[in-house]
């Protein structure tokens, strides 16, 4: 699978939900799509899944357009946090419809998952609890075996135990049938170790697209005496800084290696890095006051 996105733009009335998205995704991997609320993640995923058209620019999968093109959409399974299923159907009816839509559908696996999440096939969608509704989305997403499987916050209402089950199943399913999986979530701490690649959307643009291990190399926390740190970080890309008791901690981005005996060097986890990167703008505002 090869996804090529260039100069993609989506406008709702006067609001630009997507400004200028350029992305190239390929191969079988699990990709994390992160961003604050309103960053444009869901809009992007919906365009990718062919739900609606972009305002401008281009999006192609294997050199084919997606919108209104069953040849492409049959290969994409997109699970949103809500509004996935017609409320009057039963769980079984949803499974049957999905089995007809997705060519690689695995029925016995779907039934096994139904059992794991303790869903009753006869139950109507509208009577499902939030957690059960999310579980059904996960069951469809995993059983579809779609070459491009996209989960957008798929676990609203799902408890920690069932979320952990989801991560186990996701990995297992990915190992048995490697494919391109995009997972968008705010629970970064829980899933960061699953990602091979990370994309961060910020205000309708791609702020960052990196291999997880590169991201790890590309930043550093340095700690030391305030005056020394201040001098060192001058003209460098600082995404966070804080001082206490004469000791200063600064987080630097776009740094390769810091080899300075005076400083203690360590790393952030993905969630912290995400927070500092996306808060940057706000910090500028706070500082200019």
């Amino acid at each position: 699978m090869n996804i090529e996105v260039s100069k993609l733009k989506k406008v709702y009335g006067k609001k630009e939900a997507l400004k200028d998205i350029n992305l190239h995704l390929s191969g079988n991997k699990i990709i994390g799509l992160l961003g604050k609320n309103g960053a444009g993640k869901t809009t992007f995923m919906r365009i990718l899944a062919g739900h609606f058209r972009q305002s401008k620019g281009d999006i192609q999968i294997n050199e084919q357009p997606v919108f209104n093109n069953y040849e492409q959409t049959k290969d994409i399974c997109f699970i949103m946090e809500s509004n996935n299923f017609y409320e009057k159907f039963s769980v079984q009816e949803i499974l049957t419809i999905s089995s007809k839509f997705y060519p690689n559908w695995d029925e016995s696996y779907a039934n096994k998952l139904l059992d794991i999440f303790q869903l009753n096939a006869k139950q109507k969608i509208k009577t499902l609890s939030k957690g059960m509704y999310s579980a059904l989305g996960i069951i469809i997403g995993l059983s579809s075996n779609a070459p491009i499987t996209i989960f957008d916050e798929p676990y609203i209402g799902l408890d920690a135990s069932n979320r952990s089950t989801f991560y186990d199943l996701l990995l297992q399913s990915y190992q048995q049938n490697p494919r391109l999986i995009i997972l968008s979530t705010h629970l970064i701490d829980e899933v960061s170790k699953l990602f091979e690649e990370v994309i961060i959307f910020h205000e309708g643009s791609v702020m960052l697209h990196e291999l997880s291990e590169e991201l790890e190399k590309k930043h550093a926390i340095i700690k030391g005496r305030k005056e020394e740190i201040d001098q060192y970080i001058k003209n460098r890309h600082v995404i966070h800084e804080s001082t206490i008791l004469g000791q200063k901690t600064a987080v630097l981005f776009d740094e390769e290696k810091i080899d300075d005996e005076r400083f203690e060097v360590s790393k952030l986890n993905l969630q912290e890095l995400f927070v500092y990167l996306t808060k940057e703008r706000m910090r500028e505002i706070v500082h200019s006051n």
Partner: protein
Amino acid sequence: MSDRLKDDQPIFQQIAELIETNIIDGDLHANDKVPSTNEFAKHFQINPATAAKGINLLVSQEIIYKKRGVGMFVTEQAKEIILQKRKSHFYEQYMRPLLEEADRIQVHKDQLITWIKKGGKV
């Protein structure tokens, strides 16, 4: 041995160190089979590519070797290589922080030596 991965160190490195420690502790012997990428991924809930990177790091250092279609195994000289490597890092990783803290709280060298003589098997 802790079963949890730490946040402040690359995961692939922790996977590699885990295997190494097993080898020097004698839990894994020469020509023993090392768990597969998928087993590590499942156990730690991590991306298989990350686990593979840790394993490949050890392959490049000739600590484990690949048998096509069969799996990964501990080499004959694995233990020796790891001991060499760990010894060369010992001062930086353990002695330096120890001496720094001793300095800071004014623990005298003689005291350190007494403590060292008291414990340890070597």
